[in-house]
């Protein structure tokens, strides 16, 4: 396979801008190349959540907590189908010990810091704080006939791309499986509450697409400061 050569005849008609950071400096490795972080510097993870376990694991956990295994199935339905973690809404569970059971199986993972709307309410950007103060985002977007969610898989990013706001700070830590899933459940909850585009919830508005992606700076402003 031969590579098409650049047109040497008229280079002035095809300027080549080289990638460069603006307002920050890429961390470098010992050989002077941009640092790549594949391992998470912070090893701590949040406490185990129902969504970290498969159904068998949840049942075993329920029994460890001294309740029948089928309580794990009920909790799973509340969480995955009804998008709820509120013990007051779980009236099929005995009132006694309910709050303790929910706290043990569904520990809060994401604390909402901010919710920004644009595109006439059809785009919602969530900023979440994790148990250790790390911050992540997810973005919910309604399109004709579908809803899309961009999901974070890590706090920060170790890929150090020169255009990327996330890469500037490097990798903080990997998200747990439940921290990833909980972004989807939180988005489902927002939709079920009619938050997206102000539409009443219907089966057709359940997110069917979810995107775990690397970040790209398609923003309107480039960050010149960080850590402010």
């Amino acid at each position: 396979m031969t590579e098409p050569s650049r047109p040497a005849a008229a280079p002035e008609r095809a300027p080549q801008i080289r990638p460069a950071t603006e307002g920050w400096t890429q961390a470098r490795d010992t050989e002077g190349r941009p640092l790549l972080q594949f391992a998470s510097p912070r090893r701590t993870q949040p406490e185990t959540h129902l969504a970290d376990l498969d159904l068998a694991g949840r049942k075993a956990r329920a029994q460890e907590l001294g309740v029948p295994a089928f309580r794990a199935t009920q909790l799973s339905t509340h969480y995955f189908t009804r998008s709820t973690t509120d013990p007051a809404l779980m009236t099929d569970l005995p009132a006694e010990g309910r709050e303790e059971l929910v706290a043990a199986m569904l520990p809060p993972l994401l604390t909402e810091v901010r919710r920004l709307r644009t595109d006439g309410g059809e785009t919602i950007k969530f900023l979440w704080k994790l148990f250790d103060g790390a911050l992540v985002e997810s973005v919910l977007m309604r399109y004709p006939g579908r809803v899309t969610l961009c999901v974070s898989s890590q706090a920060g990013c170790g890929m150090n791309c020169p255009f990327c706001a996330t890469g500037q700070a490097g990798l903080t830590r990997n998200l747990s499986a439940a921290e990833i899933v909980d972004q989807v459940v939180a988005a489902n909850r927002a939709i079920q509450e009619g938050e997206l585009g102000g539409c009443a919830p219907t089966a057709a508005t359940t997110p069917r697409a979810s995107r775990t992606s690397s970040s790209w700076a398609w923003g309107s402003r480039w960050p010149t400061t960080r850590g402010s």
Partner: protein
Amino acid sequence: MGMGEPLANYARLMKAVRRMVAPAPEGLGMSARHITVSTVGLVPAIKKLAAEDLPLTFALSLHAPDDELRDELIPVNSRWKVDEALDAARAYFETTGRRVSIEYALIKDMNDHAWRADLLAQKLNARGRGWVHVNPIPLNPTPGSIWTASDRRTTVAFIEHLEAAGIPTTLRDTRGKEIDGACGQLAAVEA
């Protein structure tokens, strides 16, 4: 617009994906086809993903078809070159039957040249037909920054060069212009 490189957190990512696709009450009952995993090109992990026996949609954030530019644009290209990433993407298609997406953000005078569209098309066609489509992504105009949107004519020409070579191409739209700043910027500024 999510944060992080998902394939660098492979085990937890896959556990999360399995919860998303498991039917209720085990999980969310989503279709794997409607879940996209996007990467800058961690080749060994792409191979693992292909072997998972899940019809996930796979997207490769390529942004440049030549190593000379991609080495600078995507530092992980120093580990796995354009051709290796494209070979892994093609192998993903062969194993899963899922058409692969190539993400290509168009950056003015950096990667938006017609000859790069031709080179991209050539590299994709060299690996077969019907296995891939390209999503050029427009940036928002950012005056004073080198990371700014291609002009309309250049964008159209880039797409035309791909389509002329038989590559299915869909221009993505941009969302969240007012609230985005840059992706990840909210978290970065707040920290």
